[in-house]
């Protein structure tokens, strides 16, 4: 049931008003600062709560930070809620990663998660405090990682050869020296997954949740709770967890009141009546929410702001806080205010713009050394729009339109927007989304298959009413809104496994036999021999990875911090169950976003294609020569490398290689799902998606027959072609990716596409892109996103045309590949696009 929207009215709003422009400029100009208050408060609280149950300690540590952290409400701000006292502060918690923090202190350089190029400033006093804090934690933590200890105890020290440890430490977990090994990636949330802004909590108010907890505590004491608790340990656990919930929720309410007090204080000192009214509006909102339900659209937006901030503060070290289905969450408030004349589109647009600025402000330090890091990170405050509900109604509304418009006008890297697309998505809305994508440029919004998302939950026995309530989370995942535990995943580096198959299980880089012997590749007689060797390697590694994943997640559950706030966000289930989401308290506790993942299959298919064509069919080269070339990283074999690069490549709707890709995928799914996931008891949820990890894992892989150079990135996302290898146009790439139904088995299966602006410079052409998206969805594709290329890319294309073979430019009456244009016209187009960007 779509709402009638006037596109003209939407597009004529001014999101970035002069006030927001000023705030944005201030933020852009501000020097990043290391922010230490929170970590010091956390440590102080931890010392104060020595001896108390860990749930209470965690809640108290949040309470302390919320009640004592400095507040900053800048002149002209429409929404309260800054993470730090700086315009651009980067927080951290030493307790989570003291050794890395100490290293940064010693280096005198602090890297930010959201940038690869610049560092953060710190005062000498703060530096000294931070260093002392880190040293305290190193002293007070077990010297080894409990997870690694568990691995070692259960599997022996050899297992570390296989690991890629991210060291998200709560109690000293973090073995850096094996970081760049890269066969397995041990990648999971440090303690209990990701918190999400909860629509249900906002709608009911946290006083309601506190009341539930109090009543449940009383009921337990009066009636007992044998339904949920077996034995005294569980009873006590639930009792303390409920108390932790109450502390956390009350601290959040009181934190909001601190903002209210600050706003009232500023209002009292303010002579400008308009500003005074704004400040009073903030104060009233923060007095009302999150304790009570919002009364207006403004209060709802202010409340969302604080939820994002507080969830972030609680998670601190792994701050992926999805905002969820914002258009649905805010719509009732908007509709009421709009109908009663309290707000118009312009007011709503400016508020959304203000919310965007506040969300983007949140930053933190990254503690993975830059050289070991894939790419500037993201804090992933994902927003999901639209979708079909349990009654079959399509839910696009005015706010879905307005949120996209805000994104396009504000032009900040975050938050990322995901649109759930179905056959009911209104044409005009899809066109608007594409138009916003063009204005935004870099791939925002992304488009997800609504039906597929819901269907995957239905397939796992989730009833329709919950199955359709999902939203995007993490970099390529998604989950049910506040009904699941959002765990991390463990990925297998398929490209590396394939490399091992070419080396009889020996890793040429670390010079060690780490896989089974699958035979000297020079004796392979046909492509099937290569594939069989690869499958044998994979069959060997999968159970090991499953064991690592199971021990890792289980150890984190007993090791990691408990969460009152996260239970509160899922109060309907976690409160009666008396367990955190990660322990099984969630409605759907199996946590199937705790995936069993793989990366790099496109590179494998391209390598198989080159081997099949050049070695086994055309006999242009022997396996011996191929191996010599790979061992030499193509040095002295440049011709052979070109021949390998010119072999059929995935992404061109070419059956020669696509059939290999199909065969490999089918077998990989079979091998990886051969055994159940012991924690869920169900077949493992497969994840395929590289996000930025492909550059990191690529560093462990030598040259391959795909023509790839040693230690360079493997394929950039699940079903995109290797960069520059899809040269036959977008429909071919989509066909390659959707010819077989992998999307049903994998989450994350994303398609990255790069388009030139000139291919999208009229509504008619945007309509054609809409058709491309609709066809992708119709062919059961899962996730597609478009990079409308930038001037920088074109400039690079100008300098390195061979690396941009698939860059299409629209030139008058026809489309041409950039590489085919004369230099001067290339230059002209580069200039023209830059002009457009100004």
């Amino acid at each position, binding site marked *: 049931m779509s709402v009638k929207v006037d596109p003209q009215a939407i597009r004529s709003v001014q999101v970035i008003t002069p006030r927001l422009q000023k705030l944005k400029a201030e933020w852009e100009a501000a020097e990043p600062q290391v922010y230490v208050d929170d970590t010091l408060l956390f440590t102080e609280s931890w010392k104060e709560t020595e001896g108390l149950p860990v749930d209470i300690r965690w809640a108290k540590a949040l309470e302390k930070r919320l009640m004592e952290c400095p507040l900053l409400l800048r002149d002209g701000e429409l929404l309260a809620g800054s993470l730090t006292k700086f315009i651009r502060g980067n927080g951290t918690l030493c307790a989570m990663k003291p050794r890395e923090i100490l290293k940064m202190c010693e280096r005198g350089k602090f890297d930010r998660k959201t940038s690869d190029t610049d560092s953060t400033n710190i005062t000498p006093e703060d530096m000294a405090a931070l260093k002392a804090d880190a040293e305290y934690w190193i002293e007070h933590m077990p010297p080894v990682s409990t997870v690694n200890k568990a691995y070692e105890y259960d599997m022996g020290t050899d297992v570390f050869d296989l690991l890629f440890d991210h060291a998200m430490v709560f109690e000293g977990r973090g073995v850096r020296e094996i970081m760049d090994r890269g066969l397995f990636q041990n990648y999971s949330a440090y303690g209990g997954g990701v918190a999400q802004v909860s629509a249900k909590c906002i709608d009911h108010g946290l006083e309601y949740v506190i009341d539930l907890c109090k009543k449940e505590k009383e009921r337990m004491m009066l009636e007992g709770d044998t339904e949920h608790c077996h034995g005294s340990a569980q009873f006590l656990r639930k009792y303390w967890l409920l108390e932790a919930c109450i502390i956390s929720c009350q601290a959040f309410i009181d934190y909001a009141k601190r903002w209210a007090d600050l706003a009232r204080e500023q209002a009292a000192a303010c002579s400008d009546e308009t500003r005074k009214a704004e400040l009073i509006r903030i104060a009233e909102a923060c007095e009302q929410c999150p304790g009570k339900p919002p009364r207006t659209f403004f209060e709802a937006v202010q409340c969302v702001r604080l939820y994002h901030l507080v969830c972030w503060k609680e998670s601190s070290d792994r701050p992926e806080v999805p905002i969820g289905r914002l258009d649905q969450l805010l719509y009732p408030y908007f509709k009421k205010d709009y109908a009663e004349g309290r707000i118009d589109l312009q007011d709503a647009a400016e508020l959304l713009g203000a919310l965007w600025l506040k969300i983007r402000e949140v930053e933190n330090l990254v503690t993975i050394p830059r050289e070991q890091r894939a790419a500037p990170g993201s804090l992933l405050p994902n927003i999901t729009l639209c979708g079909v509900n349990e009654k079959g109604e399509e839910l696009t509304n005015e706010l879905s339109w307005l949120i996209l418009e805000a994104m396009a006008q504000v032009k900040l890297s975050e938050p990322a927007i995901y649109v759930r697309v179905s056959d009911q998505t209104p044409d005009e809305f899809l066109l608007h989304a594409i138009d916003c994508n063009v204005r935004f440029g870099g791939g925002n919004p992304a488009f997800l298959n609504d039906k597929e998302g819901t269907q995957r939950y239905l397939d796992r026995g989730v009833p329709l009413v919950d199955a359709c309530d999902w939203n995007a989370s993490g970099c390529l995942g998604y989950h049910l809104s506040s009904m699941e535990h959002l765990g991390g995943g463990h990925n297998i580096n398929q490209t590396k496994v394939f490399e091992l198959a070419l080396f009889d299980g020996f890793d040429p880089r670390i010079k060690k036999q780490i896989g089974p012997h699958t035979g000297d590749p020079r004796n392979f007689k046909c492509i099937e021999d290569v594939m069989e060797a690869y499958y044998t390697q994979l069959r060997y590694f999968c159970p090991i990875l499953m064991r690592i994943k199971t021990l890792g997640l289980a150890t984190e559950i007993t090791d990691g911090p408990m969460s009152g706030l996260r239970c509160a966000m899922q109060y309907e289930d976690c409160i009666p169950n008396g367990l955190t989401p990660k322990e099984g308290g969630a409605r759907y506790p199996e946590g199937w976003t705790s995936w069993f993942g793989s990366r790099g299959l496109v590179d494998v298919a391209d390598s198989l294609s080159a081997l099949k064509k050049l070695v086994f069919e055309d006999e242009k080269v022997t396996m011996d020569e191929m191996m010599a070339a790979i061992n030499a990283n193509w040095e002295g074999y*440049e*011709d052979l490398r*070109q*021949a390998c690069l*010119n072999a059929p490549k995935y992404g061109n*709707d070419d059956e020669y290689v696509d059939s290999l890709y199909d065969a490999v995928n089918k077998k990989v799914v079979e091998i990886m799902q051969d055994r159940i996931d012991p924690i869920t008891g169900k077949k493992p949820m497969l994840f395929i998606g590289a996000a930025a990890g492909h550059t990191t894992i690529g560093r462990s892989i030598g040259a391959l027959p795909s023509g790839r150079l040693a230690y360079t990135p493997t394929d950039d996302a699940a079903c995109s072609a290797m960069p520059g290898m899809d040269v*036959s*146009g*977008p*429909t*071919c790439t989509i*066909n390659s990716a959707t010819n077989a139904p992998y999307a049903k088995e994998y989450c994350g299966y994303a398609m990255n596409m790069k388009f030139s602006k000139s*291919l999208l410079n009229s509504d008619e*052409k945007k309509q*054609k892109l809409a*058709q*491309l998206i*609709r*066809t992708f969805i*119709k*062919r059961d594709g899962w996730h597609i996103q478009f990079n409308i290329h930038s001037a920088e890319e074109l400039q690079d294309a100008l300098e390195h*045309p*061979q690396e941009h073979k698939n860059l299409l430019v*629209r*030139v*008058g*009456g*026809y*489309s*041409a590949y950039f*590489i*085919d*244009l*004369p*230099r001067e*016209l290339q230059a002209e187009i580069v200039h023209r696009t830059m002009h457009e960007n100004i």
Partner: protein
Amino acid sequence: MDNTLDYTQITGTVFNIQRYSIDDGPGVRTTVFVKGCPLRCLWCSNPESQSYKPQWSYRYTSCKKCGKCIAVCPAEALSMGPDGLIHDAEKCTLCGKCVKKCLYEALSISGKVMTAQEAYNVVKRDKDYYDRDGGCTCSGGEILSQPDFVAAVFRLCHENGIHTCADTSGYGSRDALQTIMEHADLFYYDLKHLDNSLHERYTGVKNELILDNLRFLAENKKEIVIRVPLIPGVNASEEHLTLLANTVKEITPESLVNLLPYHEYGKNKYRMIGMEYPMPETPAMTQEEKDAARTFIESFGLRCKVSG
């Protein structure tokens, strides 16, 4: 067409099949470009489509000047010049040995003989994308030079519910036009110049046949879009636009007039196939000029659109 023949096996010379072709008709389309054209428009952006025969083609930006192609050429048609390869079309037998030898994809043979079925097999791969309005376009070169092939491709499309669009200069026999017309849903029809002698000067042929054929299509109630390459100094003057508008009004007043402002993006291709660019230096049109041309055409009560 004689139905006793297996029309699916009719062959044509094709120089490119472009997928996600979004400038050659409504919706998402696949465009089959046939090779060979009786016209020699000075501004032609697809010079490789002019000759009816396959041609040797050289992408000099990809060439590493390694010289391996020279060594394998049995006809000794290749040599190395200061700016890259020099190709002797007289000696070249199009054997393709140099293309296979090149590791950098700098060489190709432009143009391939294929059956209608083979061409259709590519078209059908993107059937999912065509939806209501997209489909297959045949363009050129000049489709009227290979009418049986084009009609056969269209017929295969129609048998499978795919919309067809014929992109033509209109310069060809009535028989050819009729053959194609039977299976074409839409015509993209070029009008380059309404002055007969100037038409000949710029394109090498006269325009009577073109106008006659347009009348024939209009009489047969075909849906037509008029396409006009808009070139300053050639046909962009108010005087010529008046002539154009009046002609369209007279023959096919319901048609959309689609103006295509001149660009030099085909210039590079001339070098790739060893030709000189025949068009004199021409300034690009400004947005204002494009808008003015559109408004002017519209003032005659016609529908008009400017591309690019």
